[in-house]
């Protein structure tokens, strides 16, 4: 019989020294010719910034390959300098930021392609479990329109919460934990 999983508990307010001592918010150097910056603010249900959250990202490289043994598509290159994992705290203004590369498309269910996206976990005091969301890219209109997950979200406003905004210098991805503008969050089937 499969063992029962260990329950999640909140990250609490005191994780910074243990989890953020090393800066892992830069997946590539800002000088990398294809570097992009993704920046955003985490807001609570009162519209106040959340200054004690931790945001983690996981993504494929620009070729669409994940640096993980389960992705054994040998025809796609791996880049040993790009792990695809990043971690950022939020500052006093609730802001997090990452410097990374835009991922390539990833394989989806039933042989469909997924639009390029970044997996996101959000941890904070007051969150008994992490929140999971995704960042999609504003310059991928065609791929986004065909993405099976985005298509499954009927409310266009809700769907739009998953697509970063192009601010010229950087991409903006704000997270609203609650309220009318709440970001779409995911759960995994059991």
């Amino acid at each position, binding site marked *: 019989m499969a063992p029962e999983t260990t329950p999640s508990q909140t990250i609490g307010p005191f994780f910074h020294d243990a*989890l953020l001592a090393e800066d892992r918010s830069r997946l590539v150097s800002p000088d990398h010719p294809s570097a992009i910056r993704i920046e955003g603010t985490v807001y609570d249900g009162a519209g106040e910034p*959340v200054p004690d959250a931790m945001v983690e990202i996981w993504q494929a490289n620009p070729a669409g390959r994940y640096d993980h043994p389960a992705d054994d598509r040998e025809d796609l290159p791996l880049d040993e300098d790009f792990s695809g994992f990043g971690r950022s705290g939020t500052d006093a203004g609730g802001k997090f930021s990452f410097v990374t590369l835009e991922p390539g498309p990833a394989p989806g269910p039933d042989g469909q392609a997924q639009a390029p996206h970044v997996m996101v976990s959000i941890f904070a005091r007051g969150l008994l*479990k992490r929140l999971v969301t995704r960042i999609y890219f504003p310059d991928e209109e065609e791929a986004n329109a065909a993405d099976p997950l985005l298509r499954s979200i009927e409310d266009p406003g809700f769907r739009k919460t998953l697509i970063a905004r192009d601010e010229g210098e950087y991409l903006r991805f704000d997270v609203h*934990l609650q309220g009318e503008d709440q970001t779409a969050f*995911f759960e995994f089937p*059991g």
Partner: protein
Amino acid sequence: MRQQPSVGDAGRREEDTGQPPYSYPDYRSTELRAPEKPLIILPKTLSDTTGPAYGRDPIDKLDNDLTRQYGGEPLGERIIVTGRVLDGDGRPVRNSLIEIWQANAAGRYTHHNDQHPAPLDPNFDGAGRCLTDDEGRYRFTTVKPGAYPWKNHDNAWRPAHIHLSLFGPSFRSRLITQMYFPGDPLFGQDPIFQSVRNPAARQRMISTFDLETTEPEWALGYRFDVVLEGRIATPMENH
């Protein structure tokens, strides 16, 4: 009394899944932070059956001994915490990063926001990390953390606990939890512990005293196994 099902967990009650809900009014910080709109079910794809291995950076050997990070020994009851990390099929999760953090023996964190008037310990910062071995085992030497007050409700105290952060085999298996100590008198009034409504699941957050791990004339031993969501994929299974 049965709790109302809340958003999440694919329509199952949190009580059944053994996971806490997002919204749990007794824990006041959930009030403005718990999502209210229904969660969207994320079909399994390579985006989440892969995940950060985070085991490729060298870990300093002493990182799993929180009693030897400074010149002197920290005050408090020296303990050894050890256990195994398993996937949803009960298979060992190898070479996987575990990060921990905790209060010192007096119940104080080395964190600028911790205002509890208990002493800091110059020989203890409460942060450690290690990798699991080939059997999924990990081991930390530390001191038993103290209970500490917080402002959630009148005369609120957190039971002694150690925070653990684990990656496991994929994005789906990522877990942050807290390990508690057996027989703590503060369990009954702690809404974070009680947010897990299933009593059997609550037990899975409590370590067990273990005489075999206990080292004579040195340190008490506690065992704490962790079971993560998801399973270790083998390349064959992705086709």
